């Protein structure tokens, strides 16, 4: 029995632009029906990865396999993928109804009724030229297209830009409701980790073009531990531990340890007067962007020590 291909397989993907290494040995797999979050700081490589995954760019090295096929310049893959990018341009004289009429040509499983309902839900103006749409309206349009496409692999790159909280909540609700009725594979990049982390099945974090975390939602919980207390005590405790980030303000300090502490280690911390807590995903991502170097003695992260 041959194994079913996964929805998205990224294998040792590399991509450089001139001397800049945008992606380095990136490997991860997204199974069918998963809502996968692609996270990381600006410049981490998310958009580059998404462009290659959706066939708009080709790998520099390594490969991307979509449902067993190579996406670059593949009609078969285009049919089953939806990717409305951040700087999507539409013909100058297009209004909403033009887009909704043209979209089915690009998306095999397009649902017109769903599209109309979503367009109304997000209040997309019918008479305004799309080129005059605000940032928020463009994002809402991208969401309408992405969701109504019912594309088996639907990719969103920071879909919330310009959307207020009401619109964002509608997006999450429509996404979850549609996923329940018509499951598909989603790949979504976001900076709004706190808002979105609970809807992800899987989370992939990029930092400087590399994968630093690839975990299912249920495994995220124990990924790291934050230890807080007096700086002197803390530095002794963390001496032999894998510290991701150390923060210090005067004599107060906290360290993020990854992998997370064992219960024995947590007990030891408590006995030293230090407190431990799980690390929220958004704090973990912030930590990746501010990684710890023992030699620097956390100078870069020190604040307020000269009062």
């Amino acid at each position: 029995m041959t194994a079913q291909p996964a929805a998205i397989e990224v294998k040792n993907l590399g991509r450089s632009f001139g001397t800049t290494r945008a992606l380095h040995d990136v490997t991860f797999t997204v199974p069918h029906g998963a809502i996968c979050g692609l996270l990381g700081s600006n410049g981490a490589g998310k958009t580059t990865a998404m462009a290659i995954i959706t066939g708009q760019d080709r790998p520099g090295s390594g490969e991307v396999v979509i449902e067993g096929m190579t996406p670059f310049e593949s009609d078969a893959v285009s049919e089953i993928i939806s990717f409305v990018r951040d700087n999507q341009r539409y013909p100058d004289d297009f209004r909403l109804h033009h887009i909704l009429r043209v979209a089915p040509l690009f998306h095999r499983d397009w649902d017109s009724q769903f599209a109309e309902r979503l367009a109304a839900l997000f209040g997309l103006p019918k008479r305004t030229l799309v080129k005059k749409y605000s940032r928020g309206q463009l994002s809402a349009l991208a969401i309408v297209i992405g969701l109504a496409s019912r594309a088996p692999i639907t990719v969103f790159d920071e879909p919330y830009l310009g959307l207020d909280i009401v619109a964002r909540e509608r997006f999450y609700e429509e996404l979850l409701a549609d996923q329940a009725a018509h499951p598909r594979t989603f790949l979504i990049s976001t900076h709004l980790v706190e808002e979105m982390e609970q809807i992800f099945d899987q989370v992939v974090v990029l930092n400087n073009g590399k994968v630093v975390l690839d975990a299912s939602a249920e495994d995220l919980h124990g990924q790291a531990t934050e230890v807080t207390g007096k700086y002197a005590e803390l530095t002794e405790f963390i001496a032999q531990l894998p510290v991701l980030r150390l923060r210090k303000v005067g004599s107060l300090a906290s360290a993020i340890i990854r992998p997370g502490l064992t219960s024995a280690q947590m007990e030891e911390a408590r006995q030293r007067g230090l407190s431990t807590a799980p690390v929220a995903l958004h704090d973990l991502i912030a930590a990746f962007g501010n990684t710890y170097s023992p030699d620097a003695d956390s100078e870069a992260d020190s604040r307020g020590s000269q009062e």
Partner: protein
Amino acid sequence: MFDESRPIFQQVADKICDDIMSGATAEGDQVPSTNEFALFYRINPATAGKGLNLLVDRGILFKKRGIGMFVAAGAREKLRAERENAFINTQIAGFVSGAKELGIDLETIQRLIAQEYRR
């Protein structure tokens, strides 16, 4: 709605158990479906499902094929016993340790507890 302290599926399970303990959800009542939970709390359906399945495994809920999930007979008593156990093993130890830290002696604690019971 959910915090970092424990995995979300665990918190989903605990919410359902809280409702059963309080009587808000009675034995034999149907509980919301996986998708309803997911949509309402805006969480991933697999996470909601895991919380519900956890309770099925523990005998708190059962599935009626094609209809949904219901609270099992005896669930409330089962939960009460579980929570009583947890209370004795963790709460009491924590309580006594806290009292000792504050230097409150056994006699005083016993008197205070008795007072509280009489209220």
